[in-house]
């Protein structure tokens, strides 16, 4: 029952992400646009490029969707509304989201096309940049909560949200989450103007619909993870918990989608350089600071 409800909310959330994305792009709020787009994609032909790696080509969109759905299963929307409150929840999110890389590499290698291939390998470079910046802030969050249970992580923020307790960690996690979801300015694998769609370019029709659905689910999952780890989850005055969850998740989604419009795409060399030379020391500093704070203020 909870499972079905959460899945429904996930689909609704993905739908709203699409609406927000089209609003960010065109300034108009069109509630029916994603539904029409989905039905239209079902009605179009879906072709497999010539001489592909068939397994990789077919598995990639499905794997992207599965990885986003699995990561969403450990996100609590209210204290009871969680599909699987795994004891290793925070770690499991990371484990599930790694398959995004596998999916995009498959989507890059499979079609046997130049643009997709370059897009796939560029995403691997991006992963090497952002991966540590996802994992280290999660560790610092777990230090405060003394547990990897996502519900416990939210409860541990009842005094002060983590965004104020560990602001460095929040900034690093937010940026790394945008890079994981390959949102602009980190849209190296599916750059519209450098790679004519990159990993997405060879998908058409229903396969493209699944790919896009996976991407939307990924964005909403990452926004939910940010809210759970740093913004106090369901906590807040007056409104019921689910309302707070919804408001916070949508706010984070809108921020992620809007931020990229006002910046050019980042260069991969710069992304790697800044993440490793600036980001990792900051993440280590964050862990150290949280370690000291946790001991000093029990």
């Amino acid at each position: 029952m909870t499972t079905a409800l959460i899945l429904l909310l996930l689909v609704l959330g993905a739908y709203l992400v699409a609406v927000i994305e089209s609003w960010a792009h065109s300034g108009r709020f069109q509630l029916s646009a994603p539904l029409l787009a989905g039905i239209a994609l079902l009605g179009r032909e879906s072709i497999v490029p010539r001489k592909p790696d068939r397994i990789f080509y077919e598995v990639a969109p499905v794997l992207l969707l599965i990885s986003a759905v699995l990561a969403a299963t450990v996100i609590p929307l209210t204290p009871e509304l969680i599909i699987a409150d795994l004891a290793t929840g925070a770690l499991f999110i990371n484990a599930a989201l790694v398959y995004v890389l596998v999916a995009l590499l498959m989507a890059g290698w499979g079609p046997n096309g130049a643009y997709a291939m370059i897009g796939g390998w560029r995403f691997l470079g991006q992963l090497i940049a952002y991966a540590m910046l996802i994992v280290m802030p999660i560790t610092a969050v777990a230090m405060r909560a003394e547990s990897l249970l996502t519900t416990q992580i939210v409860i541990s923020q009842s005094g002060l949200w983590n965004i104020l307790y560990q602001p460095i960690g929040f900034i690093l996690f937010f940026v790394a989450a945008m890079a994981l979801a390959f949102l602009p300015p980190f849209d190296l694998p599916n750059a519209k103007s450098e790679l004519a769609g990159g990993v997405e370019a060879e998908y058409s029709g229903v396969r493209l619909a699944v790919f896009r659905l996976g991407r939307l689910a990924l964005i909403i999952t990452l926004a939910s993870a940010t809210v759970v780890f740093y913004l106090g989850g369901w906590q807040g005055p007056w409104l019921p918990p689910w309302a707070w969850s919804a408001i916070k998740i949508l706010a984070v989604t809108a921020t992620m989608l809007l931020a990229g419009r006002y910046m050019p795409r980042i260069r991969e060399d710069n992304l790697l350089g800044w993440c490793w030379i600036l980001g990792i020391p900051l993440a280590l500093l964050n862990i150290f600071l949280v370690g000291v704070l946790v001991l000093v203020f029990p």
Partner: protein
Amino acid sequence: MISGARQGKLSGLRQLVASAMARDPGTFVVPGHDIAWAHGLDLEAAGLQQVASPRHASVLLVIGDIPPALREAAAVIYAQMMRPRIILALGSTDLSPLPAADIVAGISQQELANGVHTLRAALAKGAFHPDVSDFDAPVLQIRIEYTCSMHPEIIRDEPGSCPKCGMTLIQREAQATAAHEHTDHPKMKDDEHAGMDHSMQHETPVEYTCPMHPEVVQNEPGSCPKCGMDLEPREEQADAMHDHQHMDHDAAIEYTCPMHPEVVQNEPGSCPKCGMNLEPLAAHDKQDHAGMDHSNMDHSSMDHSSMDHSNMEGMAFMSMIDVTKDLPRSGDGLPMEWIEAPFGPFLPGLPGGLLLTLTLDGDTVAAASARSLTENTGLFKPAPIDSQSFIEQLSDMNPLAPVSYRLLACRALEDAAGIDVPIISAHARIGALERERITSHLGWLALFGQQTGFDWLTQRAAVLQRKTRHAGLKQISALKPALQSMIKRLLKAPLLKSRTVGIGKLTPDTVLYGPVARACGINNDARSTEKIFTTLGFKPARRDAGDVLARLHIRLDEIMHSISLIEAAGAISPPAPVTTGTLSGTGKAVIETPRGMAGLQLTLQDGQVATTQLHTPSTSHVALINPLLEQQALGDALTAVCSLDLSPWEIQP
């Protein structure tokens, strides 16, 4: 009935789907968004959503007249679009080899909006049709060529024997460019090919063979004609070698794929799994083949070079160092394989019509070549032409800067005919020229924003460009604060500097024009030599860095300078047509177009233009591309090309 309908009857679920498709048309713009902006079209307002890949598009939007080479590329795009697909042509006359346009309209925003309205109805009704036929065009056909493995310069269209050595020609699928081989090695230039001595001498026992292509055997050392590697000496009897390479040797010769050794065929061709040419496999290797463990072969762990071991006949074990020792080395010393990919003519972010072919080493550009597909061979023919049509032709040649070329034609004609222009109309002409400079730079900014993924810039610059295109004097002054705030906001954007500084650096010793030159510190501006500009208070912009950021700054500065020039000139009107009567003479004129200095020399005979000589800045700039892109990352390379602000339409062959 649209030509790109899907097969089937329109009923039930299909009707719902068709009406959804009508409301969500992804559009692929040919020849490019820059042309759409130059014509003042607002695609989003008309309801068309631009997509990057033809597979995501249902509408092919063709704007203006398209030259034949570009039409073939458009046919390729159309063939790669998924059905149902529909063609909306604005102001195009002939679209072959594309099918005839389903919706035709003129080039204006209102007509575009009407066209989109009709298009929606057509898609909803015609998305499915019981009777459809394939779209075919000559450019889509796989060209099977027949070539000799020892003499790759022999290419025939039918099977036969090589005229040089008598071997049967083997089949080969024609690749993207002519005479294009298995591309994981640097291609040899044609003169190297020709200079090689392929003739067989049967007396000497020491032969040289290629480790990757054992059928290639020569008597002197050299490079393998197929892949460029140095040939290794091999001690074999002359007869055995003969047996090995004669292709009509009975039955024992099989063909296999270097990447998929389990694919074995009796005749040459291409591998059904990956498309590479099949290499001959010597007979006695078959046992080795059968003994090889194929079960754990999967694509992700495939190592290309090590697969070649299975094909080598009579060779001792070759380590990776030996196998790769003649491969090209990248900058860090690693031998890797290169791929060649076209980036154009319809890549969003690059000017439409520019075919950029990059040889990529990973995501670094190892070699680049650019050419324009918009060659209009019928320009200024048949000579002589009368001055009116000459002006129109020159103005239509470049839709991205029509007023500048019109002015160039008029000035050259006036110079030839000895006509003087009063100061007032000269000022009005300057107003028009400068307004076009603003429009062109804004269009470039929108294209630059598209190339760098900077959506806000693209939208803002496109809006301002639409407003400036036909703006009068008062409106331009009214737009000044909006332009200033856009420039200020742009320069404060995060990541912009890191994205553009140091990229695409040009040195002042190359032949440069226009803003590209001024960004390098070269004071190359045709306006600085004209008195009329100095009286209006003209000062050329100048930066020294010579990179993309400097060019961006120069163009932004020029936008503001042009506004002050327009305000000083006090009037805007394009040049009036020039009547040359029956005069004769020679004339020349030089105009600072938004992209650089353009020069025109012509001779008049009895009022008709007999000979012309046109020089445009893009023609010189396109030659800069190869050295500019060496060893650049792909994103940086494309940004550098975009920053040159080429107009493929004005590139002269």
